[in-house]
């Protein structure tokens, strides 16, 4: 792992101590073998399922065609693995503790001192104390961030350059916000209806079919905006044609929690009786109903590959489920009911509860004993939502007092 340090002294020390060895035949062979093993591991990642069985097919023409296409597939897998090995600009890195240190004790201030200035600039605090607790959302590319205050303050900013794109005050309670397909449009769930705004701050649409919305999700591959709220009706609307696609009555009352499974675009809604229901616009009723918690569900998160679902309930439990077999895997306990959950692209789990944010590493497949990182918000602040910024080492926290804060979490 690379250590970011002062250039001169350390290098001088290193050069006196280590004499670099000549690459002998043994070491180069070992190198080749290592690389080959690495490649095999990568090849497994790129195989999308097992090879089709071809031998038992009687039809010669079909058998020949299938064999040829399987060869093409294996060629493609190999070249994808090689491209990743040699062309990927960076590799995953972590925050590592040495000796007696523990990673969860590192303060943000200490971390910022250790990393280079460009990355350190990504961490900042936005102090917006007056206009209610803020929600924070990122676009799919991670370049733009959307801030939505409860009292109607909406803003898009290019957070990396500290550049404000647009800002507007809608003078109404705004309960949730969502970017549409990119930074040019966003939706705000206001007091009565959902409004769509342009990146210049102009109101473009008022979606009157969506009433008293508490939670929104945008499905990027289908261009569908899904909302759920006080009436407990899940409404899907196509944002490219404007057509209403589906309206599902959940019959479970008011719903505040809506999250999508990015792998198959199924929506998970968390209800007051501890049930998580899963919906698709095609079916009339819920696809799945899972009893997850004893008490209302506070937050849901699903990982990128659609394998693990994490739910947080009022009973102060954070449970990890296998969402393909609907079986529980682990239970974690949090000091207070977790208000927000998010899973990053590298499978880190962020848990936000009252005035704290915890990041857990390797918490999904196996049971982690201690968190990876810990962060305490200033006294009196309560977490509103946590989101990881895609393709970057940053976790954004929207909370009530000091409204938006981003800090590096040092794992790709």
């Amino acid at each position: 792992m690379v250590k970011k340090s002062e250039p001169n002294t350390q290098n001088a020390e290193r050069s006196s101590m280590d004499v670099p060895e000549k690459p002998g035949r043994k070491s180069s062979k070992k190198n080749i073998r290592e690389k080959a093993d690495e490649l095999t591991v990568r090849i497994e990642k790129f195989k999308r399922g097992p090879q089709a069985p071809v031998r038992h097919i009687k039809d010669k023409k079909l058998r020949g065609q299938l064999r040829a296409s399987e060869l093409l597939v294996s060629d493609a897998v190999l070249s994808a693995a090689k491209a990743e090995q040699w062309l990927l600009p960076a590799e995953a890195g972590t925050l590592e503790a040495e000796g007696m240190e523990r990673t969860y004790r590192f303060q943000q201030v200490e971390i910022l001192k250790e990393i280079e200035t460009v990355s350190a600039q990504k961490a900042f605090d936005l102090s917006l104390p007056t206009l209610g607790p803020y929600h924070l959302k990122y676009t799919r590319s991670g370049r733009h961030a959307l801030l939505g205050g409860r009292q109607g303050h909406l803003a898009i900013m290019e957070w990396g350059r500290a550049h404000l794109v647009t800002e507007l005050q809608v003078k109404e309670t705004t309960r949730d916000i969502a970017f549409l397909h990119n930074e040019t449009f966003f939706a705000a769930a206001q007091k009565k209806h959902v409004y769509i705004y342009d990146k210049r701050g102009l109101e473009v649409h008022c979606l009157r079919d969506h009433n008293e919305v508490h939670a929104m999700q945008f499905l990027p591959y289908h261009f569908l905006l899904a909302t759920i709220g006080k009436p407990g009706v899940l409404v899907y609307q196509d944002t490219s044609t404007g057509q209403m696609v589906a309206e599902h009555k959940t019959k479970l009352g008011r719903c505040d929690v809506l999250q999508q499974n990015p792998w198959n675009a199924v929506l998970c809604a968390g209800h007051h009786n501890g049930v998580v229901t899963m919906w698709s616009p095609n079916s009339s009723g819920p696809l799945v109903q899972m009893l997850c918690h004893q008490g209302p569900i506070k937050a849901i998160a699903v990982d990128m590959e659609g394998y693990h679902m994490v739910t947080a309930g009022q009973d102060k439990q954070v449970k990890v489920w296998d969402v393909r077999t609907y079986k529980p895997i682990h239970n974690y306990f949090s000091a207070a009911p977790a208000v927000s959950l998010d899973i990053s692209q590298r499978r880190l789990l962020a848990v936000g509860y009252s005035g704290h944010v915890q990041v857990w590493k390797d918490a999904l497949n196996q049971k982690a004993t201690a968190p990876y990182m810990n962060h305490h918000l200033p006294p009196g602040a309560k977490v509103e939502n946590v989101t990881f910024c895609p393709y970057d080492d940053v976790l954004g926290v929207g909370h009530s007092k000091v409204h938006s804060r981003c800090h590096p979490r040092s794992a790709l």
Partner: protein
Amino acid sequence: MKIKTIARSEEEYTRERKQDVQKVQRNLDPSLHPMAKSVEYTRALNAVKMQRVFAKPFVGALAGHSDGVTCMSKCPDRLNCIVSGASDGEIRVWDVAARQGIRKFLGHTGPISGLSVSAQGDACVSCSSDSTVRLWRLGSASAGDASAAKDSLAVQDADMIFEGKAPFRGIDHHYQKPVFATASASVDVWDHNRSEPVNSFTWGSDSVMSVRFNPADPDIFATSGSDRSIALYDVRMGTPTRKLVMANKTNAIAWNPMEPFNFTVANEDSNLYSYDMRKLKIATCIHQDFVSAVMDVDFSPTGREFVAGGYDRTVRIYAYNGGHSREVYHTKRMQRIFTVKYSGDAAYVLSGSDDMNIRIWKARASEKQGALLPREKRKAVYEKKLVERYNHLPEVRGIERHRHVPKAVVKATQVRRTMQESEQKHKKQKIAHSAPGSVPNVPARKKRVVNVLE
């Protein structure tokens, strides 16, 4: 502590000039690309719809003849040149790219029934119902030779005239030697330097209708006769080798340039049949879809496709082993088609018809013309492969196969389909209700062949 973070410099990801393309960073990790199959399917559906949107096959017409165009010939040594003959005995040489006539060959007194250009591209032989074959010299054909006024083309006389005994119905030039074969009452093989035929074959039929040399095996040629037969001859031997008798007469024959033993015939019963020369008892493929007699057929130089023109005013393009056409071209102004040719670069198809025009069509209707940028080429290849991959799905196939066809053809196709279905049903019932094995189930490809004679 040890930390490794992402450190990206803005410079690396910014393009140098405004005209440069933005570099897209691609990570092929499958977890970043969910629902990949559905995304690909949607792309295939859009690709097939765009194909239909951009399908504009008609390129232009060569107008100038004052009577219906009866025959055409390509020049084997150059791409740009077409020679066509009309029912009033006029032969014109055209520059296809400039869409202009270059030269007129006047001399024949009857309708031109056959045209062929020699392999070296220096001479063109034409035969007519006035019982003469004339040989014309072809210079370097280009539009630059054409005179200023459109009507007055350079007129040329025949270099040589060969007198025959009966009206000629077809002609074809040998691919290597200065030899050509004609079809009249008998099949004659002529030499450029002899005024009498070198060889003369008859085998049964009272008149022979078309002749075609095999480009892949130059000494073999096939003829079709009015006794519903197709005969195979070898120039080196003195005798015809094999004869195949069908149910209806054959209007034209075309050899596959890539497969020496395969040829396709255009039959009067609105089908085309492909045969293997070595096994004439059974056709390798029946190509259906025409509703009236098929008048002419020509293979693409790739040997993977052929074009056929029918009496029902449509031009159809088939895959070499396709039972149904992949493309159909028609226009209100195009009347009965007598001759079709596939251009030498496999990109265009020409049809000569009764309305005195030769029309140029694209072989692939949605293809973009001109020089394509590398990105355009790659996209075209990708879209083609997408459509091919999802062609088994009814949504994609329905859009891909949909063509507008004249009402008369639609009605006639429905009638034919009803007739075929009832015949098949009748046959099935007969087999089902009779003793097993007593009623032989003859495949259609075999059924059409009446007899094979040695």
